[in-house]
């Protein structure tokens, strides 16, 4: 079985969100970069667990981005995986990124493509579905568990107000979220081993760009909190009911 895990680079969850160039670009200066948590904690770690359970599994990682992304890719390799592919492209339109990954997935005949449920920067939640459509494969999104027996996968996915258990045969595209696996920290052996794992750099294919970012805005600043005394919590209920009309 061949698994391809899609890895994205995002600002750290505590990074200050600010914009530059007339609010058209994310102010990246001084920002710590991490592997998108959904890609790392859930998609990648679950794929590593599948490989640990079955050493015949071939596990490749893929990232679309410039050479600045390589530390993140090496960190992912330190957690596990046999090799990584970086598509050398700066384009951030989700369709274009998905087209790059789909081309590699098709050529490499992967049985399983894992993505995170979304990235924590653009929150697109789009790449997995787009890859699946470009490959004409079934897609299960927001998976919280994934198990496999031979070619038969059992996947639990989140739905509004609960969960649904799906069964499907490989090949398959799955987007992963909390529940799939537990976060891991790379050990020294992994970090040393990652240095010598292959990291192939490939040039992008020609693909459409369907959208572009016009500008960014920050949310308006709140007017300030209205504090009610802990001696009189009934007053808070009255304010919510009569002033805010919140219930």
């Amino acid at each position, binding site marked *: 079985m061949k698994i391809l895990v899609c890895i994205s680079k995002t*600002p750290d*969850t*505590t990074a200050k*969100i600010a*914009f530059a160039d007339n609010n058209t670009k994310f102010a990246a200066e001084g920002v710590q970069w991490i592997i998108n948590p959904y890609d790392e904690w859930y998609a990648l770690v679950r794929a590593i667990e599948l490989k640990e359970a079955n050493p015949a599994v071939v596990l490749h990682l893929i990232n679309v981005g410039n050479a600045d992304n390589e530390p993140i890719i090496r960190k992912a390799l330190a957690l596990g995986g046999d090799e990584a592919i970086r598509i050398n492209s700066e384009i951030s339109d*989700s*369709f274009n990124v*998905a087209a790059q990954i789909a081309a590699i997935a098709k050529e490499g005949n992967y049985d399983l493509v894992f993505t995170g449920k*979304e990235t*924590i*920067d653009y*929150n697109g*939640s*789009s790449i*997995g*579905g*787009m890859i*699946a*459509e*470009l490959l*004409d*494969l*079934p897609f*299960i*999104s*927001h998976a919280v568990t994934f198990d496999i027996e031979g070619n038969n996968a059992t996947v639990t*996915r*989140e*739905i*509004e*107000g*609960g*969960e649904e258990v*799906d069964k*499907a045969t490989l090949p398959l595209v799955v987007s992963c979220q*909390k529940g799939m696996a537990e976060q891991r920290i790379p050990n020294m052996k992994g970090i040393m081993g990652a240095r010598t794992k292959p990291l192939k750099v490939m040039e992008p294919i020609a693909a*459409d*760009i*369907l*959208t*572009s*970012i*016009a500008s*960014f*805005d*920050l*949310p308006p600043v*709140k007017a300030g*909190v209205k*504090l*009610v005394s*802990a001696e009189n*919590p*009934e007053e*808070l209920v009255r*304010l*919510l*009911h009569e002033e*805010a009309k*919140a219930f």
Partner: protein
Amino acid sequence: MVLVFIDQSEGHIKKSSFEAACYAATVAAQLGTSAEAVLLGVTSDNLSSLGNYGVKKVHTIANETLTNFDAQLYTKAIAQVVETTNADVIVFSNNTTGKAVAPRLSAKLKAGLVTGAIALPDTSNGFTVKKTVFSGKAFANININTPKKIIALNPNSFNVSITTDTAEVVPFNTSVDASKIVVSAINKVTGEVSLSEADIVVSGGRGLKGPENWGLVTELATLLGAATACSRPVADIHWRPHHEHVGQTGLAIAPNLYIAIGISGAIQHLAGVNRSKIIVVINKDPEAPFFKAADYGIVGDAFEVMPKIIEAVRKIKATA
């Protein structure tokens, strides 16, 4: 024409679809055209009443196979309706179905997609849609540069208004392939309000000291018809199920009223809730960062304050 996808679960239309229908009708009016809807699978709901939300026509493919969700088959069916009706803009609710189908449809039709939209498109110069980014810490205005456009609207982003109009229901004839996905179980937590669609959310954090104290959260939630939520540490230590976790790596929500009890308000938590219209914070630590993001607050011990709040709400509800 603006086509809105109406999502059903086990034969019933989801609440977020009515909001998407109103949004689609308003986009249609803005573009000088009309809105129509597409519904897949078998439902027992009255579909002509979708006209109340502004759609003129409902295209239905009442095929049993489509009653269960399969992103691949849904995409194919919707694409056929788009082609036949010549829809220019397709609207989804950005719920679990929309997040799986809208990107597929985008790739299939080469139609630019904005997910997580929170406002009507700006059509003064092209077609620009505002969406949340950085998990709610900022917004991006995205240009869709293709003739066909897809918008997935975040739940609780658009005001629902109702008329007495009705819609014409028309069966759409097409063949449906066998699904490659077998749904073997649907486990819904019954009696609870869906978190992403809830108007009011009551949420608890580590300040509540243990799962045995969650009655303070659930009792208030039941009185208010609210959904319950929790902070990440609470889900991580299994006091509450992880589907209740709101925040940067959990669910991002935008209810009318968010009540946070014993949650300090780490930046990652705020990212998931700061689009709530009214935020109420109850915390005994006056330095809790959450107070900076709150509209109303009480600095006090939840165990003393909450029973009084619950009683006060109960009184109002009893006289309402």
